[in-house]
């Protein structure tokens, strides 16, 4: 089949000196020409280079063999994973920690279906990832061919958008659109399915050099009238709270948020996804809110007369029972995605727009009102005193062990102590250790906290930490893992060893699926059904078997020593922290309860 694009003369390569998306150093790179005559596989590589892609994660196979041939010797660094799920999580961790788009390349059928969890995970947390899948040749599509899967159909509900490239001449345009969709508006994963015959076909091509999508025009600019209304409410409120989420991180609006909070002495609570967007050691910070949030944060939400929700989406883990959620408050909601607004909780002043843009406008508007931080602190003094009392009387805490047992929270505290002076990127798996890390580690900067918030994907944290380490060679990348979660993607240890990625894993090893065990203890009469995972590999030997290093701590005294060893040993390291088996995460808002009905320690 011949492509129908008219032949074009290849133009000379342009040399660009502009920095690639999000990178600090301005490095010269060669941008391949927009037109010429090449194979689909070569056009694909050009498409990546034109988007500034430096590194991709993938796994070869029959339906992408032409692309892997074109990749051979190209300037793009390819990281060979051990399972395609790991590839997507690595690209995701890279994207979360750098702000760039993470890219994956996998084959058709099982290669493609293995990316589904990673895509769903990135979708729930709005992370820009582009996954390219090979597809069987076009004439075999629909024939139940070997390694055929309708991956576009399968991933439709867990991608921001997806494409099946059905014509050779569409490939350059679709590549530009895929990256554009992934990183603009509310970011998210995009999948592009490329049939094998198109990769091999040679013909003239043209990159449009700009994306125009009739049906996609995210509203970035906040409405000024709404901003004025928000400013009025903020200045009238007696009991305001800033409740901020992952949108602040994605929008790069930490500075604007901090300005807003400090300019009017407003208390701040973060969602799980929002941690790091506001300094975790700031006196105005109440801690995380929600199911395992602090007493002060949840009481503040319950008793507030004004919630200023910024880049957050009133998730059920945040609100508890919505029928009892913050009933006495007016609500301002700033979000780039209109579907997030009034989805779970009715809001009074919706402002659709990019968080950074809206906060800049709001700060400017409040600046014109001329109220100082000290004056405003004075006018809401009873509220600030109340919050301070809640913080003082019910801080996040844990009981000291009555035996030689190591408390998991103590391990997190020690990791914080050992890494607080460094540029540390902390990722987690999912479960109790994730909540303890959110509670006991202090995140000071955005993009330094990588956790699966929406989907709750066990097996995310370790590959994400590898991706983050590759994207941030000067930072420390440390994954706090549960013993059950870690084994879900532990095969990626070989990937870390192969590329010498100095990723550190602290396994909080209680021999249980701890969070499920906790629920069974509290709500199912201590009937511990299938949560005992005591038959696990010896993680130290596992590390050694894979060519990494490892160590174990069984007592409190050994914990700081093992952390030190972990940080000082070059290359990948697994620290196995054997902790108390029965420890629970508190405070806790049981399902169906309001935020004020917390179980405290």
């Amino acid at each position: 089949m011949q492509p129908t694009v008219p032949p074009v003369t290849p133009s000379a390569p342009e040399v660009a000196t502009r920095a690639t998306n999000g990178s600090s150093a301005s490095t010269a790179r060669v941008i391949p020409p927009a037109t010429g005559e090449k194979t689909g596989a070569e056009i694909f590589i050009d498409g990546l280079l034109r988007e500034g892609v430096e590194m991709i994660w993938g796994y070869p196979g029959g339906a992408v063999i032409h692309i892997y041939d074109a990749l051979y010797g190209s300037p793009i660094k390819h990281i060979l994973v051990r399972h395609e799920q790991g590839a997507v999580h690595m690209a995701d961790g890279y994207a979360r920690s750098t702000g760039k788009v993470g890219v994956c390349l996998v084959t058709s059928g099982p290669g493609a279906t293995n990316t589904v969890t990673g895509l769903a995970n990135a979708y729930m947390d709005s992370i820009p990832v582009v996954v390219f899948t090979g597809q069987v040749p076009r004439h075999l599509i629909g024939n139940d061919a070997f390694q055929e899967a309708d991956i576009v159909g399968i991933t439709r509900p867990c991608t921001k958008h997806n494409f099946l490239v059905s014509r050779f001449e569409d490939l350059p345009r679709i590549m530009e659109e895929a990256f554009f969709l992934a990183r603009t508006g509310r970011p998210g994963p995009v999948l592009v399915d490329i049939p094998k015959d198109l990769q091999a076909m040679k013909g003239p091509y043209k990159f449009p050099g700009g994306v125009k999508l009739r049906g996609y025009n995210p509203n970035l600019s906040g409405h000024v009238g709404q901003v004025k209304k928000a400013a009025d409410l903020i200045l009238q409120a007696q009991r305001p709270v800033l409740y901020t989420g992952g949108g602040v991180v994605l929008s790069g609006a930490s500075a604007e948020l901090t300005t807003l909070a400090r300019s009017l002495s407003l208390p701040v609570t973060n969602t799980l996804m929002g941690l790091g967007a506001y300094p975790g050691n700031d006196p105005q910070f109440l801690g995380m809110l929600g199911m395992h949030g602090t007493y002060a944060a949840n009481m503040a939400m319950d008793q507030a007369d004004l919630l200023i929700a910024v880049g957050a989406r009133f998730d059920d883990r945040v609100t508890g029972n919505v029928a009892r959620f913050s009933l006495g408050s007016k609500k301002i909601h700033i979000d780039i995605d209109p579907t997030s607004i009034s989805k779970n909780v009715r809001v009074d002043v919706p402002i659709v727009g990019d968080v950074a843009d809206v906060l800049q406008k709001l700060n400017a508007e409040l600046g014109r009102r001329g109220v100082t931080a000290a004056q405003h602190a004075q006018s809401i003094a009873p509220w600030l005193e109340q919050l301070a009392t809640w913080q003082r009387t019910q801080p996040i805490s844990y009981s000291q062990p009555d035996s030689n047992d190591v408390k998991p929270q103590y391990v997190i505290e020690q990791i914080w102590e050992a890494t607080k002076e460094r540029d540390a990127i902390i990722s987690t798996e999912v479960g109790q250790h994730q909540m303890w890390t959110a509670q006991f580690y202090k995140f000071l900067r955005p993009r330094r906290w990588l956790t699966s918030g929406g989907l709750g994907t066990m097996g995310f944290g370790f590959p994400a930490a590898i991706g983050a380490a590759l994207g941030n060679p000067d930072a420390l990348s440390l994954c706090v893992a549960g013993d059950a979660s870690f084994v879900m993607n532990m095969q990626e240890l070989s990937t870390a060893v192969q590329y010498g990625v100095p990723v550190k894993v602290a396994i909080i090893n209680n021999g249980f699926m701890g969070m499920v065990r906790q629920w069974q203890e509290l709500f199912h009469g201590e009937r511990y059904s299938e949560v005992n995972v005591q038959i696990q590999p010896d993680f130290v030997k596992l590390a050694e078997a894979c060519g990494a290093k490892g160590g174990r701590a069984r007592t409190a005294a050994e914990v700081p020593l093992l952390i030190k060893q972990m940080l000082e040993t070059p290359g990948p390291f697994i620290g196995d922290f054997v902790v108390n088996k029965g420890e629970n995460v508190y405070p806790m808002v049981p399902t169906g309860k309001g935020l004020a009905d917390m179980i405290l320690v």
Partner: protein
Amino acid sequence: MMADTQIQKNAFNEPEERQTLVSPVRRHTIAVTVENEFGVLARVAGLFSGRGYNLESLSVAETLEPGVSRITLTTSGTDLVIEQITKQLNRLINVLKVVDLTDLVRIDRELVLIKVAAESASARDEVTRAVEVFRAKIIDAWPRGYVIEATGDAAKLKGLIDLLRPLGIKEVVRTGQVAIARGDAGGL
């Protein structure tokens, strides 16, 4: 209803019940223009099934503009649910415009083909009378029955079907509702 949690009086002196007001479930007619791309109908239908929205009918065909189709769908929900449905539809990349026609003065039409049994002279008379009353058409006839074509809104078609049902309806096929706003309103 929410007295379990003690609430401080809010600074804005608003009734606290404000947030628990739930509007009744209502039937809505929504018009959607879409780019006629691969899989676009699956995206729209999948949105309804995936998010648990009710999809009562869906009708789709190309518009005058090549590559652009118009979908008319009917669904039910509270105001909040309908607001989510229109927002979620708008979020689909291939969706160009969404207009909720429900509260506009509009024309609803649906086409139905009814195969009805009619062997006796009296039955055949009854069918032709019903066809006349409802301004329908007989488009096929044979000794044991007729095929009737009728257009109208849902209420009219229900009336016709109810009238013919005692005679023995063999088969019914309906297009699903299409709708257009009267005058200049509701343009897509």
